[in-house]
């Protein structure tokens, strides 16, 4: 069991070092970028791969003669793999969501962000926790305007009688399901520390029309008029509404939209620290952020992006708007995930 002690000790050490000395141990003291170096990036496919290839991979390959390897996949496998390889990662950079990235930093799997990435200086404060936030992607109510008597303006509107049996709830755990559960607690007098009201009020909403576990699945349900409203990322739902289903409205409830973000995380133990930081810096560059906004309505996490007005209207921009996003104590959320998931499966779904 000596191996195990070493691994455990290593984790703690890495954790401590991460907190105490951002430039010391966890940020491995790697020499300059050399021609022929290879950077391995774990990311989603589709638009995400296309944009980062254009704005991050190609410039680095041209500038340094390095090679960028993409490992495409879903968050679930990527994260499970990064945890399995803690300390000897095969990824240099990987992308996670808001609470996964914070947990990964706590668990010593990925590094906390530092100003070794120049664009770090432009990040909003909420994008500086658990990796480098690269896109705000807030969660809100989305609904079919034909199925409601008046526009939805509050999270409490989900409890309207006319929506009974017509809600498509996001399954928990998952970014949208987490946001939905936390918001339900908040508006009904609870919080992440007092989740009881959420489960009580959710049970009142039964029966649900369905549960959705991905945006594609939700869009198909909207196509088929399976339900009237759901809780989803506003960003990509907007593309869907504009290009495929004009009846879908992205609500902006009075209580606010729930913060969600994608984070670029540099692994603890990477052998390409400098190159990884350059990668992240390019992802945070105004040009890349703008392309994300134009193509899939992801809101920038840096302050120095200028966007055309009609695009800005569809995004979360500026300190005030970002600050208005509803935030939670994610450590509490992570700590309770297993318990809540078990309750959700038993009391709400099924």
């Amino acid at each position, binding site marked *: 069991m000596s191996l195990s002690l070493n691994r455990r000790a290593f984790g703690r050490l890495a954790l401590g070092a991460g907190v105490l000395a951002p430039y010391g141990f966890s940020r491995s003291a790697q020499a300059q970028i050399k021609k022929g170096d290879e950077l391995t990036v774990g990311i989603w496919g589709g638009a995400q791969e296309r944009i980062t290839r254009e704005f991050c991979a190609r410039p680095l390959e041209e500038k340094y003669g390095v090679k960028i390897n993409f490992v495409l996949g879903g*968050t679930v496998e990527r994260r499970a793999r990064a945890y399995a390889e803690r300390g000897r990662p095969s990824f240099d950079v990987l992308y996670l969501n808001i609470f996964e990235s914070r947990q990964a930093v706590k668990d010593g799997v990925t590094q906390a962000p530092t100003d070794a990435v120049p664009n770090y200086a432009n990040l909003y404060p909420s994008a500086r926790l658990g990796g480098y936030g690269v896109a705000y992607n807030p969660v809100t109510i989305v609904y079919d305007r034909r199925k409601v008597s008046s526009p939805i303006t509050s999270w409490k509107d989900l409890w309207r009688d006319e929506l009974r049996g017509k809600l498509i709830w996001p399954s928990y755990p998952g970014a949208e399901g987490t946001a939905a559960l936390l918001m339900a607690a908040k508006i009904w007098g609870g919080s992440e520390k007092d989740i009881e009201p959420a489960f009580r009020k959710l049970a009142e909403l039964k029966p649900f029309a*369905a*549960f959705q576990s991905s945006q594609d699945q939700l869009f198909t349900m909207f196509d088929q008029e*399976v339900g009237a409203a759901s809780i989803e990322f506003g960003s990509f739902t907007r593309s869907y509404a504009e290009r495929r289903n004009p009846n879908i409205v992205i609500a902006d409830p009075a209580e606010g939209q729930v913060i969600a973000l994608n984070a670029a995380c540099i692994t603890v133990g990477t052998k390409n620290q400098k190159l990884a930081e350059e990668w992240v810096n390019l992802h945070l560059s105004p040009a890349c952020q703008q392309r994300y906004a134009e193509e899939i309505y992801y809101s920038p996490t840096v302050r120095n992006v200028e966007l055309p007005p009609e695009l800005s209207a569809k995004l979360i921009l500026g300190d005030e708007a970002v600050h208005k996003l509803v935030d939670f104590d994610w450590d509490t959320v992570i700590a309770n995930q*297993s318990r809540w998931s078990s309750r959700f*499966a038993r009391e709400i779904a099924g």
Partner: protein
Amino acid sequence: MAPAAPAIPYLLWLAAAFAAPLATVLLLALQEGGDVFTPLSLSPSAAQFTEILGDGYYRRVMADTLLMAAGVTLAAALLGYPLALWLVRLPPRWRPLGFACILVPLLTNVVVRSLGIILLLAPGGIVSGVAQALGFGRVNLLFGWFAVGLSLLQVFLPYMVLALYDVLEGRDRRLAEAAAGLGAGPALQFLRVTLPLSLGGLRAGLVVTFLMASTAYVSATLVGGKKVQVSGMVVLKEGLELLNHPLAAAMAVLMLAASVLATLAIGKAVGFFTPWLAQRPPRAPRRLPPPLPPHLRAPLVALAEAAGPWLGRLLLGLALALLLFPLLLVVVASVNDTPQATVAGFQGFTWRWYAMIFEDTRYLADAWTSLQLALAAALIALALALPASFALARGRWRGQEQLGALMLLPLALPGIAIGLGMLRLLQWFNALPPFLGILAVHVVLIAPFMLAMLRASVAGLDRAQEEAAGGLGAAPWRVLWRITLPQLAPAIAVAGLLGFLLSFGEVTVTAFLTTARMQTLPVRIYAEASFSLQNTVNAVSTLIILVTVALLLLINRVMPLDRAWRR
């Protein structure tokens, strides 16, 4: 030579590439608890099993899953027979196309297929529309066991048909003629001659379908709307989302145990109805139930003869519609000008999804990787499974059934659990050349299918011909080459094709093993779907279907899919 000797290469491969992940899963299941970083303890604890079995929720999920798998399996058998008989009756020239029809669901992406089921069953969908036209009102069959069962039936039906195909193709048609000469109509011919003679194939079909249906979870997630919860989803959620590996592993082990029991039970049941295959005198003479008195029997027979052919045609029509529906969807969607893959509404014609595939060389590079991998995996698995099937089908020896069940273990362990086991072994796995590592795992994943199918065909071989050749002085290898293999050719072709397609499409386990050094096409598509599915996936599916048709036509030239000398 020991009767089990031909199975040794197969077993060695399992020992090399499957024993380690299986052992890891078993060890994980015996942990008391702890997070992902807690080192594995060697002192076993039953804590996880106690937790699962003591929890009514988990018990219900497991029972529901097994019931649904049983239902899907029976439905697959019911639809599989008309389809397989149809395939056997097709003229040889048309048979490759018949095969292509059967294989459509295996060639289309699971997400697209599920979208099809949603389109079919949604309140505004096709079935509901028909019901409304008939005056039944709007029906919503979506997000329930029916929808999940139907989507599983769609994708597992091909396996059942392929398992039945070769035994039905190889059956002696004179027997049916003799039955007809003695006055049996089509229904009785089927029930008393064709069905009993094809039970070996049915066994393979039942086992494969049941094992796959009881471990599947993707379709259940997509068309069950989370209202349907199956064991595989528990493994996925606990193991990967909540990182509770021990509980996930314990669940997987329980599923494995249930699958092994089901395999043995199916084997026993089929063995009971096929005493002639035992090749030894029964211990006690079988007591047959007394026949029905003629005045009861005659109307029953008349009813069966009257309704049977119509029922057969109806089931065949339903089965073909179910299999071919996704084809329509993907072909239409592949030229649909919408930003996200959808099956609802045609917005305009475009070639751009095809253009994207050919412009972005990465699709082609990944497809090339997948092709090499699938070819190599299918050939190796065939070389292992063919001798092993002789060991299982020839002679009777102690432990044969148990060994047969052991060899199907990779099928019984949920793919996601194999992935979980591999995660713990990544350090060692990464030391292997990437192609070799993934190849080793793919062979493990596909060989059991091929074994199950070949076993039935080997059992159906006419040994008298081999003995005759031997008696005329042919050396054993010559008997094998000139007599045995030609008779097995259709079975080998079908099993090889299935293995190839399985490996070509595998994503559950491969997603864990993908590295910068090697990526397959299905993993690329899965990664796209994890963000948002584009119609490129439908263009890819359409191309794969076309390539498969070409491949089938080619196979049919080189190695006929039927027994050509019988034409």
